[in-house]
């Protein structure tokens, strides 16, 4: 199947990460972001990858890096975001250590692209926004390439307000 405007190229994501000074890519690998994983695995100057066994660990490794003066991003899947609520509560909310999540919407039907994710038939997709809202986490949906500007906004909010923020990747990242 041909890539559509919803499949934002991995190279554009890498550019956005570099623009925001990301130096650590802390992850539990995500199906939706395979192309971005491939780019990082191939090597991007200035960005180190840390693969974790689960999302709790990814959140806490990110916190340790942040305490040490680094600028990590936490890359995971929607169900991983659902799984790490308590770790996020502890280090992101109670301890006020900034976390920037990049969350792939695994299981989202292609007919929902460009539509409200609240109307997705997949519960795993529909739960992301309400969980983020319950936690008081600002979140942005990245649907098309112009939405990558939200990455800049998310870092500004996370670092300025010392809180977790979530960028939601709506569709499989393009391989270009």
């Amino acid at each position: 199947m041909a890539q559509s405007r919803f499949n934002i190229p991995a190279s554009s994501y890498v550019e956005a990460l570099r623009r925001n000074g990301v130096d650590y890519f802390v992850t539990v690998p995500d199906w939706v972001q395979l192309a971005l994983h491939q780019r990082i695995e191939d090597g991007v100057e200035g960005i180190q990858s840390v693969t974790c066994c689960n999302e709790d660990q990814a959140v806490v490794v990110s916190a340790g890096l942040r305490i040490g003066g680094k600028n990590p991003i936490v890359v995971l899947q929607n169900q991983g975001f659902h799984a790490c609520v308590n770790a996020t509560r502890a280090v992101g909310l109670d301890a006020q250590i900034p976390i920037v999540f990049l969350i792939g919407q695994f299981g989202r039907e292609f007919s929902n692209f460009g539509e409200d994710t609240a109307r997705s038939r997949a519960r795993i997709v529909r739960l992301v926004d309400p969980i983020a809202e319950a936690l008081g986490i600002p979140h942005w949906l990245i649907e098309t390439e112009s939405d990558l500007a939200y990455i800049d906004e998310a870092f500004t909010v996370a670092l300025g307000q010392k809180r977790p923020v979530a960028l939601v990747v709506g569709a499989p990242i393009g391989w270009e």
Partner: protein
Amino acid sequence: MEAMNTLSVCEAIARIRGDAVIVATMGSMLAFDRLGANEGRINSVPLMGGAASLGLGIALAHPRRKVLVVDGDASLLMQLGGLAGVATQQPRNLYHFVVNNGVQFAGIYNLDIAGKGRVDFAGLARAAGYALAKRYNELEPFSKDLPGILSVDGPTFVEVVVQPEKSVFGKEHPQTEVPDRQFTRMGDEARALGAWLQRT
């Protein structure tokens, strides 16, 4: 030979730490609090299982600074995959101690953990890929070996088997309110530690 408890383990570590960061949790946090070893320390609280990952992040960010994680057995069991996470990165400056007292809520109200007396934590760390893994049951050899352990590149894992402190809570002494500090201290410590790392 002298049996160990959490306090004596933490005392031995505090005595020799130099400018190393300490990442503690649960029982070790209370012991380091009693010892007044507060500078350059952060506690994964209330977050059982977070210590190793927190230490890994700090160790990666500051590769020339030793990071001493003082974990608990019940905490580590919650995030056993963290052993693989550490081993994959092979941080030479990370030293991961696990206080094995066989109970949860040690010294508060001792409840047996899953796998009590059966789990070989040092064996798990060795199998995961730590550079060195050792196990101690007595204080004297542990204290004697500690300088040597910290002089060798990690990631190193040290399991120390200790006697749990006596329970405090019960019918005569019911639970008291959890202080707000339990939820705010990790953030305060993170900010202080970040400044300390830049300063020292």
